[in-house]
């Protein structure tokens, strides 16, 4: 589903590569933790999958598409197959839960009838039934992240990228977030989650890819966060 072949990314005005000859394969339906200290290249990895950045060398395939040969015109279609969740939720403050989730479908031109049917289902899937008409500032951090996950998943993407989704959330609430991610993963969606949260990685027992200074130093199925941190 995601295939990196010897990928190197150097940002302009920086000597050290953000990713240094990285090769990794993520299969369909997998759940992968991307761990490593800040600046190790986790976010760069996610940005490359979305083609927000281009690699300096190496090949990237996402959902069967060679990103180097994907024209700018087709990038939006790639992104429709990838959902994204961030540490800072990125909700629209002037729209309620339902509207925030529906926005993702409206802007890709889905018919209103479809939106009315699908959005409540997804709001329920992330555990926010009965709160569809709350505004983001009336929700807790954990609930806001659930809205963001609903928005990321509402178009049934093949891949869900999560960049430290529990970074702003207390450990008890994080467990709920991870349950939702696990539920999404069980529908067949590939999940890649960048995180610093050792407890979560250890409890989930999923594949762990560890980056350090842009290099993969560990790739372990059913791994733990590691002792070094």
């Amino acid at each position, binding site marked *: 589903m995601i295939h990196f072949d010897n990928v190197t990314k150097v940002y302009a005005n920086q000597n050290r590569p953000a990713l240094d000859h990285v090769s990794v394969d993520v299969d369909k339906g997998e759940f992968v933790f991307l761990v490593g200290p800040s600046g190790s290249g986790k976010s760069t990895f996610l940005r490359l999958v979305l083609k927000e950045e281009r690699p300096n060398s190496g090949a990237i395939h996402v959902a069967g598409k060679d990103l180097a040969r994907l024209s*700018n015109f087709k990038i*939006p279609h790639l*992104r*429709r197959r990838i959902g994204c969740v961030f540490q800072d939720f990125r909700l629209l403050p002037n729209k309620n839960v339902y509207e925030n989730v529906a926005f993702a479908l409206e*802007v890709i031109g889905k018919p209103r009838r479809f939106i009315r049917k699908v959005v409540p289902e997804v709001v329920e899937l992330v555990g926010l039934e009965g709160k569809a008409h709350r505004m983001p500032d009336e929700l807790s951090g954990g609930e806001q992240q659930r809205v963001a996950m609903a928005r990321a998943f509402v178009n049934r993407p093949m891949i869900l990228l999560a960049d430290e989704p529990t970074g702003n959330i207390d450990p008890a609430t994080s467990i709920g977030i991870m349950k939702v991610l696990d539920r999404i993963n069980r529908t067949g969606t590939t999940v890649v989650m960048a995180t610093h949260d050792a407890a979560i990685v250890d409890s989930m027992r999923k594949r762990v890819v560890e980056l350090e200074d842009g290099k993969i130093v560990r790739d372990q199925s059913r791994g733990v966060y590691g002792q070094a941190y």
Partner: protein
Amino acid sequence: MRANFIFSEVWIGLRRNLTMTIAVIVTVAIGMALLGVGLMINSQISGMKDFWSDKVEVSVYLCKKNDPFPQCKGSGGVNAQEQAALRTQIESLPQVERVEFEDAAKAYANFRAQNAGNTVMLSAIQVGDMPESFRIKLKDPETYGAVIDGLKGAAGVSNVVNQKTILEKFFGLLESLRWAALVVAIILVFAAALLIGNTVRLSAYNRRRETGIMRLVGASNLYIQLPFVMEGVIAGLLGGVVAALLLIISKVFLFDKVQEYLANTPLTWETVATVITLTMIIGVVICVLASFVTLRRYLRV
């Protein structure tokens, strides 16, 4: 593509930047109105040139008794022999299409007709005061120079007047007006483009959250950019409508009034409509271009 989504976004954007939107509308309106006035003067000039080129004549005035012109001093006015010689000379010139003799009686009749309301003038001037003249119609009005030079010193000629040189002063004034209007229009169009760029940049900044999410969930570039471009288009169209009103007003109160004095070639509504259409199109195209150029810089896709 959902039209009501786009339009609600456009409306929000225009309302948030109300002052900028007004500035854009005013600049576009004045710029386009001046451009339109320039184009209207242009069509006016060519219409008037056509009208006058049929009518302009070179007048060769003949000496009369006690004529104050230095060439005529001492002579008791033109005699029949000189007059016949002049006619032969004029008719032999290759540039001349036809020549007519205007005697004092005819000149006096013309003079009376032109000054019908002016009783003082009419009572003061007698038939004998009117100069006789040859009225020359040229094949090509531009070739008057040689004709005038050839006739100016001839015996019995008091003065040679080319009506075209009088008209040309007037046309020169119109032409500089046209250029002034066009230059100011170009400067304003440039200012309008910059203003639109700024407006779009402001609304791109105001809506960076929305566009960020749209990008993330895979909205197409067109869908993301269209509300911004539409903002520019609507501001440009409103400016164009104001410009159209200004042009119609200037036709009724300026061009038509001037026409009453100058020539029987009034500006047609058809011309005004063409000019309005043209300025509208130019205004909107400039707005669209300015929006797109700005979006490419401030709305990375």
